[in-house]
C-alpha cells in the first residue's frame, strides 16, 4: 500500500482516552479501558488491532464509532475521520450528523455478527431497515441493488426472501458483510467478524472482505485476537495491551521483527509447520484496569522488566521506519 501513504489518513486517532465510570453506593470506580491510544488508518488499507480479551479493543472501536453509552465515556483525545472534518470525534458530533454519516460513510460489523440479523425479519427487510434511508430511490430499485450487491459476496438473490435461520453460518456472515458494505462506506469497522466460523468458511469470508475493500477503496479497521487472521488479511497491525497500543507497523514487518516483548510472545505462540516443541505461555493475566500497574502496564509479566518500567510510562516511538513501539527495553529513556 505504498500509494496510500501520500494521502491523508481516513482516521486519525490521537491520545484517545475512554473510561468506564461508575458510582454506586458512594464508591467511584474508573476503569481506564482505553488510555492514550494514537494511530492512523490510511485510505484503502486494512488496519488490524490485536490483543487478548479485555485489552480494550472493543472499547476502542466503540469510542471511535461514537457508540458511547454510560458508563463508557470518552474522556480525552480525538478520533477524527476525514469525512467528518468539523468534529474531532463521532461521539462529539450532534446526533443528526452522526445519523447521516453512519452506514453511509462509516459502517460497523458487530461482534457476534451472526446475530446482527433480526430472526423474525426477512433478509430484504433487514436491508431496507438498515440501508434504504441512506441510498434513497424506490423500493424496487433498492431491492435490485441489494440483489446485485449480494452477488458480489457470492450469494443468490433468492437469499433476500429468506429468514436468517434458513441460512448457514457462513451465508449469514456474508449477508452481514453485504449489509455493512452496500452503501460503499469509506470506513468499515469489523469487530471479530469471523470468530465464530470454522477455518474454511473463515478463509472464504476473509477473502471476500479483502475483495470488497479493494473494489470500493475503503479502509477497514479489523479487530480480532487471532494472529493468523491478521497475518493473512491486514496491511498494518496494532497490538493492544491493557488499554494501550504497545506496537504498530506494517503487518509483515511486525511478524518478521516484533520489537515489544508482548508482541514477541504473541507471535511466538503461533505454531509453525514442523514444530515439535511445546510453546511457552506467558505467565500471569492482564491487569485489572481499575487499578492498572504504574509505569508500563506490561511490566509485571515482562521478562525484560527493569526498574524504570515500574515507574515511567514508555513513549510510543517510531523505532524503525513506519514501525512504532512503546518499550523501555527497545527505546531506553523515552518516557511518555
Amino acid at each position, binding site marked *: 500500500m505504498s500509494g496510500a501513504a501520500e494521502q491523508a489518513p481516513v482516521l486519525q486517532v490521537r491520545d484517545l482516552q475512554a473510561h468506564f465510570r461508575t458510582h454506586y453506593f458512594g464508591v467511584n470506580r474508573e476503569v481506564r479501558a482505553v488510555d492514550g491510544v494514537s494511530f492512523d488508518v490510511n485510505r484503502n488499507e486494512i488496519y488490524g488491532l490485536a490483543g487478548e480479551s479485555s485489552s480494550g479493543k472493543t472499547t476502542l472501536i466503540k469510542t471511535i464509532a461514537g457508540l458511547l453509552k454510560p458508563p463508557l465515556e470518552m474522556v480525552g483525545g480525538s478520533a477524527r475521520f476525514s469525512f467528518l472534518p468539523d468534529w474531532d470525534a463521532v461521539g462529539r458530533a450532534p446526533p443528526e450528523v452522526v445519523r447521516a454519516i*453512519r452506514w453511509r460513510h462509516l459502517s460497523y460489523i458487530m461482534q457476534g455478527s451472526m446475530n446482527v440479523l433480526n430472526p423474525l425479519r426477512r433478509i430484504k427487510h433487514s436491508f431496507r431497515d438498515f440501508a434504504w434511508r441512506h441510498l434513497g430511490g424506490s423500493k424496487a430499485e433498492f431491492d435490485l441493488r441489494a440483489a446485485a450487491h449480494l452477488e458480489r459476496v457470492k450469494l443468490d438473490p433468492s437469499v433476500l426472501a429468506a429468514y436468517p435461520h434458513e441460512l448457514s453460518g457462513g451465508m449469514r456472515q456474508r449477508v452481514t458483510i453485504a449489509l455493512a458494505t452496500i452503501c460503499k462506506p469509506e470506513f468499515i469497522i469489523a469487530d471479530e467478524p469471523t470468530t465464530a466460523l470454522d477455518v474454511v468458511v473463515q478463509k472464504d469470508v476473509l477473502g471476500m472482505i479483502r475483495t470488497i475493500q479493494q473494489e470500493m477503496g475503503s479502509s477497514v479497521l479489523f479487530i480480532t485476537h487471532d494472529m493468523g487472521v491478521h497475518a493473512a488479511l491486514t496491511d498494518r497491525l496494532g497490538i493492544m495491551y491493557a488499554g494501550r497500543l504497545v506496537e504498530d507497523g506494517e503487518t509483515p514487518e511486525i511478524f518478521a521483527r516484533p520489537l515489544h516483548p508482548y508482541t514477541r510472545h504473541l507471535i511466538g505462540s503461533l505454531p509453525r509447520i514442523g514444530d515439535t516443541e511445546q510453546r511457552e505461555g506467558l505467565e500471569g493475566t492482564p491487569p485489572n484496569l481499575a487499578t492498572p500497574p504504574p509505569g508500563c502496564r506490561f511490566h509485571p509479566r515482562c521478562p525484560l522488566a527493569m526498574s524504570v518500567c515500574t515507574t515511567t510510562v514508555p513513549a510510543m516511538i517510531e523505532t524503525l521506519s513506519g514501525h512504532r513501539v512503546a518499550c523501555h527495553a527497545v527505546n531506553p529513556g523515552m518516557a511518555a
Partner: protein
Amino acid sequence: MLAILRDLIRYNLEFRIGLFLVSIVVVMAALSVVSPYPAGDVYVVPPDLPPSTAHWLGTTSRGQDVFWQLTAAIRNTLFFGIMVAALSRVIALVVGLLAGYSGGWIDRVLMSINDTFIIIPLFPILILFYFVLRDSMSTPLLATIMACLGWAYDARLIRSVALSLKTREFTQTSIFSGMKTHEILAREHLPYVLPIVFSTTMNNMNWSIGIEVTLAVLGFTDINTPTIGGMIYWANQHTALVAGIWWWIAFPIGLVVMTFVGLFLLAVSMNEYIDPRSRLARMGGGR
C-alpha cells in the same frame, strides 16, 4: 398462516375444541343481523313460552324470543371484549416496548404508573364510574374505561421481552444504521412480542367479558343495550328462576361459558404453539 392453522387443527385437540366453541359463538353473533325482531323491542312475542319449535330457546317474560335476543346480546358482548382487548393491547404495546427499550427515567415513570394500575382495586372503581357517569354510560365508553384499566399486566410482560431485545446485536446495529427509536420498536421489536400479544388478547377478552357480565348482572351498565349480562339482569328482575322461566337464564349462561372456555382453549393452545419445543413434542418431532 394457513399452514399454521392447519397444523394447529391437526395436532392440537385444545385448539380444535376452542375453535369449535368460538365458531358457534361467532355464528350466533352473526345471526343477529337476520333477527326478525329488533333487539331493543319488548312484547313482540307471547311471554314465558318454554322452548319449542316456534321459539327454539323459549321466550322471556318481557315478550322477547330468547334465541334472537341471545344473538344480539352475544354480538354486543363479543364486540365489547374485542374493543377492550384491542385498545388495551395498543396501550400495553406502547408502554411496554418504550419502557423496556428506553430504560432510565422513562422506564421508571412508566412502570410506576403501570404498577399503580396493577394494584388499583378494579371493581369499586368501575362502580364509581357508573355512578358518576350514569346516563352517559354506554358500551364504547365502558370499553374505553376498561381498556385504560386493563393493560398493566401485559405491559410488564412486553417490557420484560423488550429488555432482552434491547441488548441484542440487531438492535445495536439498527441504532448504528441510524434508525429512530419508533422505527426500531415498530419494525424490529414488535414482531417479537406479537405472539405473546395474541395469546394475552384472548385472556384479556375473557377478563373484560367477565367484568362486563358482572357489572351488567348488578345493573351497573347501560341495561338497555342487550348483552349477556343484561339478559341475566332482566331475568333476575323478573324473578325468572322463581317463576320457573329457567331458559331465560340458562341459555345466556351456557353461551357465555362457551365463549370463556373457547377463548381460553385458544389462548392455551396458541401459547403452546408459540413455544417451539412443546409444539414439536406434540407433533411427534420432539425426540
